[in-house]
């Protein structure tokens, strides 16, 4: 081990690019998050469906292999419905991941007054939120958006350019709904982490935002005999958006895709306000 002389000297070496310095937060937060073996196992399990799907896509187009079991190549139709089920399944896992990881991102910093430590350096509040959000964002993207687009690319390569051209709307739908899901979950995770110190409660509230919204929505719909309650149901809004964008809407859909997307964006704005209100170095006096 090196022996350090007890002395102090200034630093005059090169500095890193300020534009990407928020990634330092992400790197350190990742290390802290993956100290939990439970999370590591859970995260690995999130890749089960995508891996099975990749194998299935390959087998679905492997004529020689399918002939042995007397099936034709492409016996299973890969379309919007398939990607809808995929996104909803992986989306559910992403919500669980957010409930587990989100509360540990900001709460420990606020609990120990560490915000001045970050913000007294050349780092803005927006970069702090971005750095912390990137942890959740990369985890969520890696189990939803990235594997869905990868599956689309694999299917395109197996089926050829015509399939790709005819089903390009699928990639658009995956991208838009995947990005919205990421935005909502990142901001929800950070907001709960910022406002609720207790990790378990914050995690429960992340899940509650989906469950309670559904309940409230159903009550409003029943009492007021309207469809306004659907706008409180996050799960329903995502289903409506994804269904419409993947050309697989539910029959008699009461919420149009655009309305669902705008409602989700408004929810994101509300969460941003909550985060902005809490992540301040000092309380305003008087």
């Amino acid at each position: 081990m090196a022996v350090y002389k007890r002395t102090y000297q200034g630093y005059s070496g090169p500095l890193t690019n300020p534009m990407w310095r928020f990634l330092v937060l992400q790197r350190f937060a990742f290390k802290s998050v993956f100290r939990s073996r439970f999370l590591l196992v859970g995260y690995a399990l999130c890749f089960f469906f995508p891996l099975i799907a990749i194998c299935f896509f390959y087998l679905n187009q492997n004529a020689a292999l399918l002939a042995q079991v007397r099936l034709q190549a492409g016996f299973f139709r890969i379309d919007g419905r398939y990607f809808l089920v995929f996104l909803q399944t992986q989306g559910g896992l992403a919500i669980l991941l957010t409930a587990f990881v989100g509360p540990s991102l900001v709460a420990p910093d606020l609990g120990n007054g560490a915000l001045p430590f970050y913000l007294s350096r050349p780092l803005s509040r927006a970069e702090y939120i971005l750095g912390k959000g990137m942890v959740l964002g990369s985890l969520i993207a890696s189990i939803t958006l990235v594997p869905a687009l990868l599956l689309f690319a694999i299917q395109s390569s197996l089926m050829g350019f015509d399939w790709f051209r005819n089903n390009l709307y699928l990639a658009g739908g995956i991208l838009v709904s995947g990005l919205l899901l990421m935005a909502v979950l990142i901001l929800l995770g950070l907001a709960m982490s910022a406002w609720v110190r207790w990790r378990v409660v914050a995690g429960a509230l992340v899940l509650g935002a989906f469950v309670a919204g559904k309940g409230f929505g159903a009550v409003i719909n029943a009492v007021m005999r309207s469809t306004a309650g659907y706008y409180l149901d996050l799960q329903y809004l995502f289903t409506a958006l994804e269904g419409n964008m993947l050309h697989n809407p539910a029959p008699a859909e009461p919420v149009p895709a655009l309305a669902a997307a705008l409602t989700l964006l408004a929810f994101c704005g509300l969460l941003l306000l909550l985060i902005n209100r809490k992540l301040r170095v000092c309380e305003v006096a008087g």
Partner: protein
Amino acid sequence: MTHPVIELDNLRVRLGKREILRGLNLELRGRTVGLLGPNGAGKSTLINTLLGFWKPSAGTARVFGHDVRSEARRIRGLIGYMPENDCFIAGMPAITFVRMGAELSGLPADAALERAHEALFYVGLGEARYRKLGGFSLGMKQMAKLAQAIVHGPKLLILDEPTNGLDPQARVRMIRLISEMRALGTMHIVVCSHLLRDIEETCEEAVILKAGQIVHYSNLEEERASNRRFVEIETEGDDGTFAEAIELLGCACAVTAPGKIKTVLTEGIEIRDIYRLAADRDVQLRRLNYRRDSLEDIFLKAMG
């Protein structure tokens, strides 16, 4: 001509409906500056404004010539800040905490790690650097906060109540470190403290704030130099003529009580001349102090 370390020009800061800083005008160029004032005087608000956490409602504040309104990010790159309150991440080892601070200030990862080791050794936490901050004593946490503030080699170090809650031994260690850093001459230091003794021991200049205004500025170095000419004497066996004898040497003199004399030594008169005079007149000198107004006297006067 180099820019002043801190330059305030009619600085006003309003938080909510209250005006906390009321038209501060100041130019500080000293190596170490003490910021004094009672609770609510505006010390922390001034520091937070310099760090860009609060925006001035009027006037300007500059650090090394950079405006806090438009160049807050650049200023924060030049500053190391040790906050008053708890500021750590409980589950994180000290070395990771200090290293992360260095990386956030722009040091490359390998340099940051090396500097984190050096900084922790420097503040005396070398042996504890792999321990989690949550298990540190208050004194150790203060030292860890100091390490994260100096790890990137700032040009200006702001220490907010650095000896808060420290036991006497740890306080002495903190004061020694501040004095050492001052002596190195690589950074300017602003010490914000309620403890006048801390400011007196570490600073060259002191600024006293009261109700958001600067009520006194004191160059402690000059005060110390003038104090060397101001002497308090207690005598025994003086028949009342010792003071007159001192005056005959050309020194201004006042008898404050029987046997108690205050005098200002004029140029060319040294303390040994007083001893000689006492020996000639067979007067015992029971006590002899170089003392004028201490910072405490100055502070109390400023507070009205």
